[in-house]
């Protein structure tokens, strides 16, 4: 059978699923079917080695330095926290804690620990280790603002951890999933030395790491879940070249390719592709609102009306993705129905043209080719902006250069992905507050206010209301222009089981298993 002919059928089926689901929030049912391989068999014999091809290596194994997706997948395999993100990526479940509860005001969290917890070196995990680890995580630069509501962490006895908040914050529980537990005081080592050979209590232990080449993880015999991991060994092989990763998968040298770009999709039959959808990621046209012409909201509005999101989805992403639901990506719980019925983010080139009054403002479209962004997308956006009347110069830079330019204010419009790693709209709101507000000159007072409103919302309904309020304000002021949520694909061997990709593009290595 012609392999390449299978893909359109597969894509059609996937697109039908996505389209049939309607609004983003109702997609959870469909997503389980398409973003997972067949489930692992519980209690089955452990399989040997699973090799995974990834495009870039971890930056660090220090939880304080979590930055990129590769770090999240690796660190959740090496370490455990009190809680963790559930496999569907939508809720929080116990990890080292068997259960947890709150007081009436939700200002005191009590975590009941599992029995007999041990680190990968066989030493017991103590409450002192857990208290130390949470306090250490709260000092980390990346996520520190999300820990800010915690006033104390204590251990009333050897089986419980109590966390008290100075004010209610719904960000605390999600962020605790990245407060990975390590031995107190890092066993006397410096962080640089400890995290080269870290000791954790996750499903795996680091066996060897040849940076930029290969990382080998071996099963942690002391892991609290006796059914996990399914594999005795995971080899994370760094293969930057996209075609080389795909070749390795097809040759059977690896069983999982963490990223198959759009142009390589026809090389794999649909049953060997796993789609990451709905994603907790979106593509944004971030305008520099302190730089002409975008100091004028009307010109930003013109950009909004110039982009044909349906066309992007259909032609650029082959129907794999979501048009856009605003600034909170569809993979996050609060994204559901955010702009439902509001008529926002329409395509109206005539209106875009009219808004510019024939001024033909010159702009520079700055971007770097990242996941979901390629030359086709850039060409289409350039053409649409030019049709509206903008005079567009395109600057393709590597990611580091582009970010440097943005932070220096040396840009007029920046096409960039924005990804969240927690099942909470609080994470993108924090990013917008700390990063986009200063760089793209959003109204700091307003963004901080919406983040505060969101943080203190105690029910899912209240959180949705807070998220919608932010979305409406962002749209009314055209602070930036969301353009879509393309899906990304993982390539999998026919023998691989148990892969369930979370909306963040991460997954649990402990669930992977080989059939046969």
């Amino acid at each position: 059978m012609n392999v390449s002919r299978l893909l359109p059928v597969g894509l059609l089926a996937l697109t039908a699923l996505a389209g049939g689901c309607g609004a983003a929030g109702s997609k959870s049912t469909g997503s389980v079917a398409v973003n997972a391989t067949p489930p692992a068999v519980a209690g089955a014999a452990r399989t040997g080695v699973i090799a995974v091809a990834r495009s870039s290596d971890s930056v660090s194994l220090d939880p304080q330095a979590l930055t990129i997706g590769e770090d999240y997948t690796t660190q959740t395999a090496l370490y455990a926290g009190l809680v963790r993100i559930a496999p569907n990526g939508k809720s929080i479940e116990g990890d080292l804690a068997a259960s947890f509860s709150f007081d009436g005001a939700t200002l005191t969290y009590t975590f009941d620990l599992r029995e007999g917890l041990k680190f990968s070196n066989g030493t017991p995990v103590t409450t002192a280790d857990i208290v130390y680890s949470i306090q250490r995580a709260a000092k980390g630069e990346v996520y520190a603002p999300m820990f800010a509501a915690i006033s104390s962490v204590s251990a009333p006895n050897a089986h419980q951890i109590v966390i008290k908040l100075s004010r209610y914050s719904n960000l605390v529980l999600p962020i605790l999933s990245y407060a990975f537990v390590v031995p107190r005081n890092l066993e006397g080592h410096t962080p640089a030395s400890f995290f080269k050979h870290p000791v954790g209590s996750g499903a795996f232990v680091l066996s060897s790491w040849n940076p930029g080449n290969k990382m080998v993880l071996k099963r942690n015999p002391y892991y609290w879940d006796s059914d996990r991991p399914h594999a005795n060994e995971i080899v994370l092989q760094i293969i930057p070249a996209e075609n080389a990763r795909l070749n390795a998968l097809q040759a059977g040298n690896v069983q999982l390719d963490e990223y198959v770009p759009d142009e390589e999709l026809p090389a794999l039959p649909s049953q060997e592709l796993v789609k990451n959808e709905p994603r907790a990621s979106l593509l944004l046209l971030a305008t520099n609102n302190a730089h002409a012409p975008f100091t004028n909201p009307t010109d930003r509005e013109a950009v909004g009306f110039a982009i044909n999101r349906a066309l992007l989805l259909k032609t650029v992403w082959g129907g794999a993705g979501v048009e856009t639901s605003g600034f909170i990506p569809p993979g996050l719980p609060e994204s559901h129905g955010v702009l439902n019925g509001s008529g926002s983010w329409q395509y109206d080139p005539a209106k875009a043209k009219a808004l510019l009054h024939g001024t033909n403002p010159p702009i520079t479209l700055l971007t770097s080719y990242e996941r979901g962004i390629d030359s086709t997308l850039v060409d289409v956006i350039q053409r649409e902006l030019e049709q509206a009347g903008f005079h567009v110069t395109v600057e393709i830079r590597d990611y580091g250069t582009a970010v440097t330019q943005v932070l220096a204010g040396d840009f007029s419009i920046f096409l960039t992905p924005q990804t969240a790693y927690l099942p909470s709209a609080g994470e993108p709101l924090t990013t917008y507050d700390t990063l986009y507000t200063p760089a793209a000159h959003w109204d700091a007072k307003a963004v901080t206010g919406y983040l505060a409103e969101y943080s203190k919302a105690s029910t899912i309904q209240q959180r949705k209301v807070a998220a919608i309020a932010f979305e409406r304000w962002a749209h009314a002021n055209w602070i930036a222009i969301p353009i879509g949520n393309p899906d990304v694909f993982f390539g999998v061997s026919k023998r691989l089981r148990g892969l369930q990709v979370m909306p963040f593009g991460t997954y649990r290595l402990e669930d992977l298993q080989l059939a046969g």
Partner: protein
Amino acid sequence: MHRFGFLARRTLQIVPLLAVVLFVVSALVRLVPGDPARALLGLGATPARAARLDRELGVNKSLLSSYVSYLDHALQGNLGNSVKAQQPVITLIGERIGVTAWLLFFALLFALLLALPLAVVSARRRDRPLDHGIRGVSVLALSIPTFWLGLMLVSYVALPTGWFPVAGFGEGLAQHLRSILLPAFALAVAIAPIQIRALRVALIGALDSDFIAAARAVGLNERRVLGRHALPNAMVSAITLLAAQLGALLFGEVVVESAFALPGLGQAMVQAVSERDYAVVQGITLLAALLVILVNLAVDVLYVALDPRVELR
């Protein structure tokens, strides 16, 4: 004594040569736009963290200041630390040089195995159809981009047969050999055509010379004439060319390592450039420059062994 003086003089010349190469590389790396800390840490990192990493990288120092400091450390055997890999560059090179050495060795071996017999046949059948055929195929092979040949070998040899891994270097001698054969062949095809043509011309020249006519006149058989007299003379030019091709070979090695996902110095170089890992770029360039210089020195010495008429000055 002459030889010792020549060697000492040439060895001393290596140091300033390397210093110049290093300066040029340092300047070029600095010209690449962008912030190395941001390239490594991404948009999510705080400005404080990015600034700290920039300080560690010496981004704020002047080119001259960081160059002098690097040179000082390099002379003491310290090539700095890779910020991405969080390890000394010397260690990183040590971990990867084996793969590259395997690749270069087998590429040279295959190139020689291809070039030598084809050049001999071509020279002996001069201007006949076989000679034209070999020369035509050589031109064709020369025009094939190495990365394309690599992809073709993967698609039409490795994947259908399953005999050769297409990523990584494997564990143990047998897997190393299987991993290296196709990439080494791809690299060999890139350099063999020039070797064939150069060796053919040199052989024709040698076979037409008076000393070969004399050898034939005293009754030596053709095999002995070729093996003992014509080939050693022709090899002088082939070896010179090989030294000149080393630069191209190192470039091809970078491409081939990426196509076959071989964890050698070429792949490390590509990653380091994209991640602005200055120390790694400088370290590998220094090593490559040293290799080219040493090989050229070795070739000069080899001239004497192959042709006693050559004098070292």
